[in-house]
């Protein structure tokens, strides 16, 4: 069970990292602060919201749309896991 969860988290993180890396043209460590490092603009953040919703069939609503949830690959992974688990 916990094995499954780890695998899921890893594959989610990989998918997200691949999307971000492709867009910024560099490898992105999972804990890197994307806003602070200037890698992600507000515009790209909007794209991330739409991408996560489509790639993982989740809906990100209300206060879940706060910036902190998109700050790093790690944070986005946690968000997707939580939204998936809530179903």
């Amino acid at each position, binding site marked *: 069970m916990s094995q499954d969860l780890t695998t899921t988290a890893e594959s989610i993180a990989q998918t997200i990292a691949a999307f971000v890396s492709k*867009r910024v*043209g560099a490898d992105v460590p999972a804990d890197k602060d994307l806003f602070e490092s200037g890698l992600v603009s*507000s*515009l790209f953040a*909007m794209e991330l919201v739409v991408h996560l919703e489509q790639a993982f069939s989740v809906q990100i609503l209300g*206060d879940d*749309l*706060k910036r902190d949830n998109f700050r790093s690959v790690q944070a986005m992974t946690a968000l997707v896991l939580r939204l998936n688990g809530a179903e």
Partner: protein
Amino acid sequence: MAEQPSIVKCLVWDLDNTLWQGTLLEDGEVKLPDSVRELITELDSRGILQSVASKNDHDQAWQQLEALGVAEYLILPRIGWGPKSDSVREIADELNFALDTIAFVDDQPSERAEVEFHLPQVRCYDAERLPEFAALPEFSPATVTVDSRRRRQMYQAGFLRKAAEAEFQGPSDDFLRSLELEMRIGRATEDELSRVEELTLRTSQMNATGVHYSISDLRGLLVDPRHEVLVTTLTDRFGPHGAVGLQLLERHAAVWNLKLLATSCRVVSFGAGSALLGWLGDQAAHAGVHLVADFRRTERNRMMEIAYRLAGFTDEPCDCRAGLTAPAQEDIQRLHLLPTPCDPPPTMKLHTVSLQSA
């Protein structure tokens, strides 16, 4: 009962014995009547686009149009030997216009018949009717806005921009930087009001409340010292995008209430909405006030909510909310921001008014 004909958005001209007098390849020399020159500039100023579908040698005909000084008014010209119905259809497709908004004028009955046969929605006119054009209702839009007078230039800039984007390799932020975007935010002028009203009507995807403000509502707010009606225009190295954003702000002592934010869908991909919110947050931080933004979810304005939330707006309670006047509609939510100073985005240059001084 005859219905009011819908407005023509693009007029497609034949050249020989229609736009000019004479047959270029036979006579070698052609004449542009003053009345036609006047008609071209008049339609242009009304925001009606104009194009060409002509059977001619392309280079020679285009040189002639340049020599006559009218080439700049004609976009997406189709000069060649193919059927004119193909040319007209390509022009409509490229502009993303419905065929029933296109008009075609030609002196040759056979050419008009060919277009009518394949594209029955296109309105075809005999060149003999050109003297009446300026007075025809389908060529007379009810309102002519600041932007309709510049519409052709905005389309021309759009074509160049599209070509540049297709050629560009690399991260999209670098592309945005290469556009040399300049955003101006200023208090609305009387002249801009019709365009501002249009923005509240047309921007369904990027309108935070879906509330429509009429010209007279807006005119009243322009002179109200508590309200700010702010218009955003955007230009880049290819030319103007025109008015792309509207902010309606009501000031209170401790809080500014953003009652409406509407931006044109055309500029979402340039990050215009986020840039506006960032600027407003910065202004509020310097004025020492909180910001409260009205938002009403519609079927189409999700991107607007995302922009607000990513900019830091939340549902959190705050004492400042008590000082606000009642919202324009019952189902409006109010999102709160504790503003902090914010640098403009690296992808555009801002020229703005200061809201401190009012």
